């Protein structure tokens, strides 16, 4: 699964995939690999901007208009048990947070990392380019805080993040969430639960 931790539809898609897996007979045979994608790689590192202001600029809309537009995604998220907090959410460059997820992936904690970071951004409105915040979250994920800080203050896993993004582009992904099963079936966007369930069945049938 390719996602960006600031992507509201990715967290919703993640929930739907998890529900599909919960009802999938062969779920124990499924290995879920979390891959990085940046929605806005050009967003300057070190800049922090309220999400509403950032979107208002992008869409040439007022903050109030953006608030109204985000109402729909908040409603859909609520149906998946996610209480999104956009009012105080802050847009940052997510590259370093993605490097942290690769440390977690290497330790077998990729799923935990994506879950915790998406929750931190989308539900708790935490600032995800702040090293101390990310180290605190790393500890909750189960990572060694010293290793996490070393990664975040250096450039480890840069190639891994870039490779994930390049692979998604080669597969034709233009947005996220983006799911690929057995390099055969692609599911793009926060599709309904039934689509994920059908994709899992198809991938399993093909393997058998």
């Amino acid at each position: 699964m390719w996602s960006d931790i600031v992507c509201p539809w990715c967290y919703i898609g993640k929930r739907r995939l998890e529900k599909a897996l919960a009802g999938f007979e062969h779920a124990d045979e499924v290995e879920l690999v979390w891959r990085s994608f940046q929605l806005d790689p050009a967003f300057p590192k070190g800049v922090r901007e309220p999400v509403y202001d950032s979107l208002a600029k992008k869409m040439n809309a007022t903050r109030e208009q953006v608030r109204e537009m985000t109402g729909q995604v908040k409603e859909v998220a609520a149906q998946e048990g996610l209480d999104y907090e956009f009012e105080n959410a802050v847009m940052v460059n997510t590259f370093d947070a993605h490097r942290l997820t690769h440390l977690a992936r290497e330790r077998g904690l990729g799923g935990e990392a994506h879950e915790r970071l998406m929750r931190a951004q989308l539900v708790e409105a935490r600032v995800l380019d702040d090293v101390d915040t990310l180290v605190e979250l790393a500890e909750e994920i189960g990572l060694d805080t010293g290793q996490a800080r070393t990664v975040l203050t250096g450039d480890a896993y840069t190639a891994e993040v870039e490779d994930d993004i390049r692979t998604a582009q080669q597969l034709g992904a233009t947005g996220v969430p983006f799911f690929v099963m057995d390099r055969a079936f692609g599911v793009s966007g926060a599709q309904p639960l039934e689509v994920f369930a059908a994709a899992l069945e198809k991938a399993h049938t093909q393997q058998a």
Partner: protein
Amino acid sequence: MGVLSSEPDRTREQGPEAAAEPGGNEAPLLALGGLVTLGSEDAPACSDGNCL
């Protein structure tokens, strides 16, 4: 986050049958780098920094 699109009103599978429909506007089979795509083309997603 980016542009929030609306929820799809239906689900469909883009398989060989869909691709073969004359005059249909379904995405072609193997549209994504050799992948068979499943689901609606207009499922909500974020792209180019937009989710709205």
